């Protein structure tokens, strides 16, 4: 279920953050020292995900060490906007006292529950008590602060508002949220946020994909506040609009390797003057899923039924794409105003299989150990008491896979990212807003892993990545992955062609928290300078 859900339940995710799917609770922590490794991991996960307060890490830009901090949040994604607020304009006397002739049968039907009375609308409601009949929900607030080992720090806060009143609508047994003609699973929401971050070290190698490999550094403080509105149009398509104010400043740095000491306005636009920006954006997001799983063979009561195979395939195709246009309006000088078209795509195939028969780990079995390695997370184990060879009871661990257990063979991702910047004749894109390739960028998006962070900058960017990721259940939450990266960055007037194309490939390990990859460590090759070791922490805020 997801079931389910189960059910005609309403789960409303505003896509607020790339946040953890489900929080653990601290239930597993009391027995931390006495319990097995998995409960220890559960406890650690709870420390970084339990509501309302938990630790957090990452979310400072790469190159600034490891950040640790705290989060205070209230995530009530399950709040139903279909619940109308209590109408404060109603007077609710006890009907039995005010209407003595009221039919006893009706009183009986009302039952003896607390507050079992009828409400009468107040004909003269106090104006201040009038409420919008739409659902007004201020939920999903979040406040976080963290600091890193090199003195970088950030703080952020946000909350959401669900201003529109949806009704639940059931069609073909599926429950949707209905707003006019729109049938969706998510609802319209507006997120308000504010963030300040102080970054002590960002690297710069000059502009373009042909810049020299000499590393320079700069500091940056940034404050941005604004709002994002997300309107689901269908179950797989969402429109998004954003307005925010951004203010960056680059503190003076006189170090010999500082950008300010080695570059000028021509080679690092915006190095000396940082205006405020009004940033607005319009985008469309898709998130469509399709499952390919054949039907089971028809069951018959034949004397000699067709043997059923052990497994059948189950592939989950998912297309997550975002296309949008962003405007950066220089509020002070006008010189640094620019526009950007950005596209990101992640087409994935989750490879899996479903068990059709029961199989257990009989002594001498060669298939079961292989299945355990491949899909151990789907199996079952139990410790049972049996009679040993000496007649005494012994505890034996028994393992099995049952029909309908799903075996995860890993996930193949095809990722793309395109950025095209547009400026007027007299405008330039400030270097700190140029997209980068190499390692991870300022938003912790991983790109060319064979290169250092921020290695290549340009107004335009193209990136393709292919990844295969596999969880290794016996090592849970650690998994493995292999990847290929290829991309190029170009300045205005340059092409994203072969001359600027860089590529690499490699292998790595992942760490999941609550099912989401939060850390990737890797060894990448192909950049022409040996094996490059690196890691990427997922940006959580």
């Amino acid at each position, binding site marked *: *279920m997801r*079931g*389910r*859900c*189960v*059910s*005609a*339940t309403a*789960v409303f995710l505003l896509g607020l953050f790339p946040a953890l799917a489900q*929080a653990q*609770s601290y*239930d597993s922590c009391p027995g931390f020292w006495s319990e*097995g490794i*998995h*409960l220890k991991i559960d406890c650690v996960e709870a420390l970084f995900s339990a509501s309302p307060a938990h630790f957090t890490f990452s979310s400072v830009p790469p190159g600034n060490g490891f950040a640790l901090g705290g989060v205070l949040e209230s995530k009530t994604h*399950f*709040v139903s906007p279909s*619940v109308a607020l209590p109408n404060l304009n109603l007077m609710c006397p006890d009907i039995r006292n*005010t*209407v003595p*002739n*009221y*039919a*006893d*049968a*009706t009183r*009986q*039907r009302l*039952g003896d*529950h*607390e507050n079992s009375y009828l409400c*009468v609308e107040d004909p003269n409601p106090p104006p201040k008590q009038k409420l919008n009949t739409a659902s007004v929900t201020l939920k999903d607030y979040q406040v976080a602060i963290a600091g890193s080992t090199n003195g970088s720090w950030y703080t952020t806060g946000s909350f959401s508002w669900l201003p529109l009143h949806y*009704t*639940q*609508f*059931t*069609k073909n*047994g*599926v429950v949707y949220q209905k707003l006019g003609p729109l049938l969706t699973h998510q609802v319209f929401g507006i997120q308000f946020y504010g963030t300040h971050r102080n970054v002590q070290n960002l690297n710069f190698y000059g502009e373009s994909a042909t810049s020299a490999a000499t590393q320079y550094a700069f500091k940056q403080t940034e404050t941005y506040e604004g709002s994002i509105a997300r309107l689901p149009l269908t179950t797989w398509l969402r429109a998004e609009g954003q307005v925010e104010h951004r203010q960056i400043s680059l503190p003076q740095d006189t170090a010999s390797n500082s950008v300010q000491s080695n570059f000028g306005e021509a080679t690092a636009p915006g190095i000396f003057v940082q205006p405020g920006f009004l940033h607005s954006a319009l985008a469309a997001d898709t998130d469509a899923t399709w499952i390919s*799983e054949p*039907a*089971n063979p*028809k*069951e018959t*009561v034949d*004397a000699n039924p067709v043997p059923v195979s052990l497994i059948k395939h189950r592939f989950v195709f998912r297309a997550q794409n975002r296309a949008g246009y962003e405007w950066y309006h220089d509020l002070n000088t006008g010189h640094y105003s620019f526009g950007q078209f950005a596209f990101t795509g992640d087409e994935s195939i989750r490879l899996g299989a479903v068990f059709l*028969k029961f199989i*257990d780990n009989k002594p001498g079995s060669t298939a079961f150990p292989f299945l355990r390695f491949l899909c*151990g*997370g*789907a*199996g*079952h184990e139990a410790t*049972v008491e049996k009679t040993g060879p000496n007649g005494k009871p012994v505890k034996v661990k*028994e393992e099995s896979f*049952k*029909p*309908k*257990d*799903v075996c995860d063979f890993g996930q193949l991702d095809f990722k793309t990212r395109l950025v095209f910047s547009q400026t007027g004749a007299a405008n330039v894109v400030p270097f700190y807003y140029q997209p980068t390739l190499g390692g991870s960028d300022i938003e912790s998006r991983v790109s060319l892993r064979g290169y250092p962070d921020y290695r290549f900058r340009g107004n335009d960017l193209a990136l393709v990545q292919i990844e295969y990721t596999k969880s290794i259940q016996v090592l849970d939450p650690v998994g493995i992955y292999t990847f290929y990266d290829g991309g190029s960055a170009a300045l205005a007037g340059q092409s994203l062609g072969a001359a600027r194309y860089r590529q690499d490939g490699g292998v790595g390990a992942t760490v999941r928290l609550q099912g989401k990859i939060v850390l990737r460590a890797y060894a990448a090759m192909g950049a022409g300078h040996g094996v490059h070791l690196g890691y990427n922490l997922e940006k959580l805020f």
Partner: protein
Amino acid sequence: MPTPFRHLVVLMLENRSFDHMLGFLQSPEYPIEGLTGNEINPSAAEGGLPVVVSRDAHSVHDLNPDPGHDFIDVNVQIFGNKDGIPGGPTMQGFVQDYALVSNHVEQGANVMKCFTADTLPVLSTLAQQYAVCDHWYSSVPGPTIPNRLFAHAASSAGSVTQDAVAAPAVVKTIFEVIDDPENPSSFRIYAPGASILMANLYLARHQQGFHAYSEFRNDCLKGDLPEYTFIEPSYDDDFANGVFATSQHPDFPVNQGEALISDVYNALRDGSQWETTLLLIVYDEHGGIFDHVLPPAVVKNPAFAGLPDPPPSTDPPFAFNRLGVRVPAVFVSPFIKAGTILSEPFDHCSIVATVRKLFCLDKTPFNWREAQAATFENILNLPVDQMRTDRVVLPAPVVADPPADMAAAAGGAFAIATAQPKIPPAVKKPTDLAVSMARAMEYTMSHLGIKPAMQTSQIYSAQDASSFLSDAAVALSGAGKTAGAGGSRG
């Protein structure tokens, strides 16, 4: 007869007695233990004529307010007294009890109204085209929650009332037994909304078995049904959101439940597991509606002396040694002859006992009630080579409307108050069952450390109850730790 069925699907509806639904199918050619048309109950009016069973039950409005079906009410209905002391006429207290509950002498007679094949076409057709049980009793002479718990656990943890807050949480259900890691069988619970099973602590922690009812048909077509499937109806209306109650609990429309029965049957019939599936359509209790058959007592067989007793109820005192009133029960399978009548006594413990016998490694019954319950693994009466290939085409459900004046009277009851201030249409109150389910969910959530967005004491309307149950289900699903398909963690 060997058992060719490998999948059992149970659909349990609400609060209708056997005679009320199927009694008038009786005929010389179809000799079920049904109605001759001469069955009576004394009138509630002093000196009034006895009320005779009639064939004019309507889809709605007959049973508004809800007839009493608590333990005390059922004692009155069966024995004529609140203490359940035998000695007087039996099965003669239905009209009087309902007259007291509804506070209307005339209303009391409505519990004697029954359906016919014309006004209840779907269930009637399946009963006549496959197998009907004319001695399936509810396990408890009481309300829904204890009876449903008996259908899942052969026990209600000592509760005989609807206020069983802790009982749903603590009972060990047959689902937990199936879920043994070494057991190759599995289960699913299809629910369109809330289910009392979500309040069970084990199931709340292992939620992989819960599925939305909207997935049922597709799972049938894919041949993806587990060995044991339990289907919940929807327990309440939510008209604004296009949701109709399908439980048939009075006073929800009977035709909506007929549509659900039809939907389940057609999904199975169209699926690739039809030949190996047995469908059981049964009701949890009689709902305070007339039935003429005295429920038997159950006495512990000395052969099961070593098995525990189901925990007794202390308030009111009851040792679960007496069955509840008969309910409709229909079996459907291509290996059942048309017109089959099963007269062996079954009760809801029979479901637990049969599932354990067929699908569980652990063969130890929960208690002697389960051990003594008749099982139905051998009811199929067609050999393998004579499997039916016909498709029973079900008629459309019928909305048996009440007369116009009666409908107006029912609606008028809410508009009857003429005293000032003017009263608008009533805020729809939650059903007893919805509130009971909410309290049980709240109890379980407190044990799992989950704080609900709203407390049950704040439930005011049916919408509140529906929202609470929906939110609780999601909150519990967020807390569920999968120990099955999602992986085991020692």
